[in-house]
């Protein structure tokens, strides 16, 4: 197969995908949902067939276009309707609550204790500090979000004011 024709097909596929991504307002990969990630892989596989002419270019446009259009329509529906959003994204699973790992959720998410400890360490929390955690959940993008108990949060200026107030009351 002529390298020139492969180059022409690759260039056309690139321009087509660029135009499609530009108008669909794709989020960055780091912010992509699971479905967007799957879509990226599927389109990546489709482009291979188009570049090496295993399928006519119209079939590639039809497949990639339909998938992107569907993803766009579902994203729009999820933006306007919370039920659709919940159905598409699911509730972020709570892995740890009041310092205790939730076994059922860990099993469902296939995260063992060591992996959980590792995720928490990356968030700057050692095993000895687990009791300080009110809730730790995996957000969309696989990022662990940790919410500490009020008493475990670092001291702030308002806390100093409270201490001063108590000291003043005792001294009276």
């Amino acid at each position, binding site marked *: 197969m002529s390298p020139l024709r492969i180059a022409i097909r690759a260039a056309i596929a690139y321009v087509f995908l660029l135009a499609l991504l530009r*108008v669909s307002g794709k989020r960055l990969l780091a912010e992509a949902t699971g479905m967007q990630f799957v879509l990226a892989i599927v389109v990546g596989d489709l482009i291979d067939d188009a570049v*090496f002419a295993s399928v006519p270019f*119209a079939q590639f446009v039809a497949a990639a276009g339909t998938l*992107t259009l569907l993803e766009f329509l579902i994203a729009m529906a999820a933006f306007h309707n919370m039920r659709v959003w919940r159905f598409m994204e699911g509730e972020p699973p709570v892995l740890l609550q009041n310092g205790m790992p939730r076994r059922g959720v860990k099993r469902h998410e296939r995260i063992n204790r060591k992996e959980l400890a590792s995720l928490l360490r990356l968030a700057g929390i050692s095993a000895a500090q687990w009791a300080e955690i009110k809730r730790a959940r995996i957000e969309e993008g696989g990022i662990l979000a940790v919410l500490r108990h009020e008493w475990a949060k670092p001291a702030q200026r308002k806390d100093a004011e409270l201490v001063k107030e108590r000291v003043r009351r005792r001294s009276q």
Partner: protein
Amino acid sequence: MKALLNMTAVLTASFALIAGVVFGLGDDETLVSPPDVVARSFVEALGHGRPETARDLLTQHAGRSASREAVAKASRRLRSRIGDLESVEATVRNRRRNRATVHVEIEGTRMRITLVLPLARESGVWRVEGLGDALTTIARRPPQGRTL
């Protein structure tokens, strides 16, 4: 809503561009699969036991004359002859406007054979039009190790 319209416009413009290049400018191997690729895909589908995929690559006329059973039978025969498909090399030998002849070298675990497939352009894309000949070639079994 504007984004949806833009996306529809991109898709429509892409299809229009492809149609213009294929039907208007007569492109027959850049935005459509060239005949050797179609012939190779056809033989690979037969060799891997996917007769439905192979049937989709036939011209309308050949598709009408070759039933699903006939294509499935051809696929079984080919596999029983060559064993597991190892490689397929297709070369365009003769090409005139909307017709082409492709020689397909098929190498299997048992033997190597050559098929001559006639192709024709139909609705802008290349299709295999001579399944009958290909089947006959497969059906005539030469001694093992010899090329058809």
